[in-house]
């Protein structure tokens, strides 16, 4: 084979060859025809005619040639890739310490990101799993809950909505499986009959509700969740058609939903139809409990619907038979896309977490990049040889990138394991009534995200070292030193100042990110701390609470309720160790809403301007049991029985707001639509209600005997720890009335802790990330300083020989570390300052520029940097000049 041929084979353009080949043929044919007697021109003509279209032939041949080339290139590429991968594996295995550190770092970074992303994706980003999800809206979202009449009006009289359904979730109900077993408390939802169809949900067994089942009298049906059916009915297939007792009322099970269905949240385990009885104005207009969701007509916007809603509101204001709402009623009526509405107050904390975990990954990538830079320096001889043997720079880069991506991929595998565990941990850390919690999973989308992230990470940490290492002329290599066994502190074969500066710059970035994270975590911790220190307004220790729900059917009238709870009160008071027992319709912090509009005679001049009060019916021991102070007048006592003049107590926040200059004692308040009027006899201390972070709202107290409710909460103050009383309590109450469902028996402190679930979740996670960032940052500093020290052994030898003391050398190293840290901290603090506005929304009673944090964090990181540099500093100090000069 001549050189010419080899060149041809090696990929000189085939177009020339084909041209030559065809030209040869035509020339031969022309010659032949000339030899037969044709003139040269005629011969040429005939040769061409015989040949056919030269262009077409050439095009065909070129196409074939190109195909061949592509195939060859593909095969070669795959072969090279296989080579690279095998080589990469060998290289990584040969340095197990380095590989282990890198893998661990990457696994942490990628795993954490995957876990957070899976939560954010499911709760915030992904569209709702219902048909026409982008047209679903929350209607009158600013109000939160509507009355039945308002919902019906929305459904029928807002043209932009093609459908609207309503639900009331988290309703406490007693459930008896009809098997004679005890009734237990479950949470369920009341829904309009069309809700399931609206959500595109089909039952696993039986059917869902029919439209007529919302008519009064026709609604003795129930749909069960899969879990409830499995637990209480033994997953019996003949459950459809069976009778169960819900709140003591027999209902027919008409359907069972599939296991993956939950609405409005996992907490709701059965569904009842909402009864719409417009003939009863008190029922239709008097309670606002329904949340309405709607579907926009194609082409309609939420803005249009909101405008129509506002117009409707002004009409409804006048149609309300019970009272006339204020002028502003409906003025701010909002129609919000449902996805946003459901993720509402989770968005900000989750996004902050996502940013934080992204920062952790960046730090991890920086660390691995530095590791690779250090390794690359020690491999410069290997690269020099390969270049000499003909490898192009691109080829070297490709090989190094393959190593990086392999590293990233392996790290990602470990990361996925971590993510699996992390996702589960997060889901259990979030409140159980978080919407869409069921959708959190490591599914295809999340895996795709992980793959992309892994690729990006591999590129990020691999590109720079790859480009550096493959530079023509090598990495400025000097003679190689002896490899130390320390994976992070290779006595490098060169690299010199450039590499050190680069590594140093990267570490500075790392430190800045770590500062940002630690600062944010510190602020959140401070905020959480302040939150938990808030005085709720009552004594929380040694209080056992329980929710009592008797079957409403049997305890529908006042007399029975008074008798029942009187007996309960007496028997519980007689239990050993009981110091005080009280009943209340609403416990602080237990999330059940009991708000009402209240008319204050002499204060609220305008019947259209009724303020909203929290309202509780309590037995008179309530204030003593919870140690709520009496500020003015008197508390309830035995005088305030059924039939006596109606009395009420207000709390201090109500007194301050509505009676700032006058004495509330003796004032008359009441509900105009039910013609109940009460006299205020006293003022008690204010109590935090739903959240520690929320100021107490005006509260009205009524004596239980004058306003007996069916379901009540029991509060027990006893001697010693509360769990002792818990078992007794159940027995005693069962002794009074076995059909009462006793549930949520837990100490008062548990309720408060539950209300803190969300801030605790965010704080805990951020703390984990900050800790990770700190550890990774420390590792990074150690690595870079260590590496730099190893490189400068020779220089230290010289200094020592010239009279420097060990302490001087150590100080040199520490100073270098200090400079790096200082720059990083400064940048980080600046970034933290800039991001304060974002965090401020999450903080309670903590300034986003809290000086303690802004001073403490730099100190902490400075300390960490110094500690990380101690090892290398000592090594520098112990350099023996002669040995160093030999080694260098």
């Amino acid at each position, binding site marked *: 084979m001549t050189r010419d041929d080899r060149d041809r084979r090696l990929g000189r353009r085939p177009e020339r060859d084909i041209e030559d*080949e065809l030209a040869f043929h035509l020339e031969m044919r022309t010659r032949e025809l000339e030899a037969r007697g044709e003139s040269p021109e005629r011969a040429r003509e005939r040769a061409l005619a015989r040949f056919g279209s*030269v262009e077409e032939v050439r095009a065909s041949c070129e196409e*074939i040639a190109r195909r061949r080339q592509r195939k060859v290139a593909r095969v070669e590429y795959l072969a090279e890739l296989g080579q690279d991968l095998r080589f990469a594996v060998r290289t990584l295995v040969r340095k197990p310490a380095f590989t282990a550190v890198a893998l661990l770092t990457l696994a942490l970074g990628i795993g954490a990101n995957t876990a957070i992303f899976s939560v954010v994706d499911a709760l915030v980003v992904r569209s709702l799993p219902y048909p026409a999800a982008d047209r679903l809206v929350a209607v009158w979202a600013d109000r939160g809950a509507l009355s039945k009449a308002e919902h019906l009006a929305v459904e029928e009289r807002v043209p932009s909505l093609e459908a609207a359904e309503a639900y009331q979730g988290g309703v406490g109900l007693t459930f008896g499986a009809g098997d004679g077993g005890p009734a237990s408390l479950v949470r369920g939802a009341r829904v309009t009959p069309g809700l399931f169809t609206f959500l595109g949900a089909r039952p696993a067994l039986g059917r869902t509700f029919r439209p007529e089942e919302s008519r009064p009298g026709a609604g003795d049906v129930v749909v069960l969740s899969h879990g409830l059916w499995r637990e209480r009915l033994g997953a019996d297939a003949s459950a459809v058609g069976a009778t169960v007792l819900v709140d003591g009322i027999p209902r027919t099970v008409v359907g069972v939903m599939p296991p993956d269905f939950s609405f409005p949240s996992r907490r709701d385990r059965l569904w009842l139809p909402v009864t719409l009885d417009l003939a009863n104005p008190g029922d239709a207009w008097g309670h606002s409990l329904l949340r309405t969701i709607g579907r926009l007509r194609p082409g309609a916007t939420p803005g249009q619907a909101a405008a129509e809603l506002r117009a409707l509101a002004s009409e409804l204001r006048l149609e309300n038979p019970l009272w006339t709402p204020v002028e502003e009623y409906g003025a701010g009526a909002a129609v919000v896309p449902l996805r946003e509405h459901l993720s509402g107050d989770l968005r900000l904390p989750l996004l902050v977490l996502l940013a934080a975990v992204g920062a952790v990954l960046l730090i991890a990538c920086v660390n691995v990049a530095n590791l690779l830079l250090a390794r690359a320096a020690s491999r410069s001889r290997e690269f020099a040889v390969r270049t000499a043997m003909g490898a192009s720079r691109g080829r070297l880069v490709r090989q190094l990138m393959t190593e990086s991506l392999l590293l990233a991929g392996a790290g990602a595998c470990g990361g996925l394991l971590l993510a699996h565990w992390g996702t589960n941990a997060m889901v259990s850390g979030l409140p159980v009534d978080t919407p869409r919690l069921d959708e959190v999973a490591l599914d295809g989308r999340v895996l795709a995200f992980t793959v992309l992230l892994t690729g990006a990470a591999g590129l990020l940490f691999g590109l720079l070292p790859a480009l550096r290492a493959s530079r023509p002329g090598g990495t400025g290599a000097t003679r190689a030193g002896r490899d130390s066994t320390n994976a992070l502190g290779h006595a490098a074969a060169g690299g010199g100042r450039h590499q050190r500066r680069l590594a140093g710059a990267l570490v500075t970035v790392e430190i800045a990110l770590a500062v940002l994270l630690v600062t944010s975590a510190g602020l959140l911790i401070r905020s959480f701390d302040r939150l938990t220190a808030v005085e709720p307004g009552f004594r929380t220790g040694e209080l056992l609470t329980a929710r009592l729900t008797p079957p409403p059917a049997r305890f529908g009238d006042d007399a029975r309720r008074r008798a029942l709870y009187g007996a309960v009160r007496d028997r519980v008071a007689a239990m050993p160790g009981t110091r005080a027992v009280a009943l209340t319709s609403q416990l602080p912090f237990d999330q059940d809403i009991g708000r009402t509009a209240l008319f204050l005679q002499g204060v609220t001049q305008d019947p259209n301007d009724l303020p909203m009060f929290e309202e509780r019916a309590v037995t008179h021991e309530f204030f003593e049991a919870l140690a709520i102070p009496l500020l003015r007048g008197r508390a309830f006592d035995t005088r305030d029985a059924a039939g006596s003049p109606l009395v009420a107590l207000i709390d201090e926040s109500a007194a301050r707001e509505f009676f700032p200059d006058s004495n509330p004692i003796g004032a008359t308040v009441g509900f105009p639509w039910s013609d109940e009027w009460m006299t205020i006899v006293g003022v008690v201390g204010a109590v935090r209600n739903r959240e520690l972070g929320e100021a107490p709202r005006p509260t009205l107290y009524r004596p239980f005997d004058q306003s007996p409710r069916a379901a009540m909460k029991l509060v027990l103050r006893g001697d010693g720890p509360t769990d002792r009383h818990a078992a007794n309590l159940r027995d005693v109450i069962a002794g009074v009335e076995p059909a009462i469902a006793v549930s949520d028996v837990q100490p008062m402190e548990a309720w408060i802790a539950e209300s803190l679930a969300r801030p605790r979740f965010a704080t805990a996670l951020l703390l984990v990330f900050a800790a990770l960032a700190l550890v990774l940052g420390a590792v990074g500093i150690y690595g870079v300083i260590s590496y730099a020290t190893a490189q400068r052994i020779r220089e230290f030898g010289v200094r020592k020989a010239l009279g420097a003391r060990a302490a001087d050398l150590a100080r040199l190293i520490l100073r270098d570390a200090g400079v790096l840290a200082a720059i990083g901290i400064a940048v980080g603090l600046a970034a933290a300052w800039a991001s304060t506005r974002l965090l401020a929304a999450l903080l309670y009673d903590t300034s986003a520029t809290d000086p303690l944090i802004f001073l403490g964090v730099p100190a902490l990181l400075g300390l960490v940097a110094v500690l990380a540099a101690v090892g290398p500093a000592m090594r520098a100090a112990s350099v023996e000049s002669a040995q160093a000069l030999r080694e260098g």
Partner: protein
Amino acid sequence: MAGSEVDILRGTLDLLVLKSLSWEPRHGYGVARWIELSTGDVLQVGEGTLYPALHRLEERGWIASEWGVSENNRRAKFYELTSRGRQQLEAETRSWRRYAEAVFAALDAPSVPATT
């Protein structure tokens, strides 16, 4: 156009090319001449179609090419049969003969052929 020009099916062209190379390497023009001479010039190839055929056959590994010097001292691309190509030639020859015999038999048959 004069005479009995018969369009050659691609498969048949491949067969003829392989046959033409079964004795010795030839260049493209040589293959064209051989086909012309051995078929009595009945098959007047749109000669150009020979070249895509040659390239295709090379792509499939039945023939291999090499640039060399022609009988009149010019640079030319020579093709030769590979061992796989030789096997392919034998197989295709066999099946072509069977096909041709069957067609001949049909052409010579009476109106109602004898059943076997």
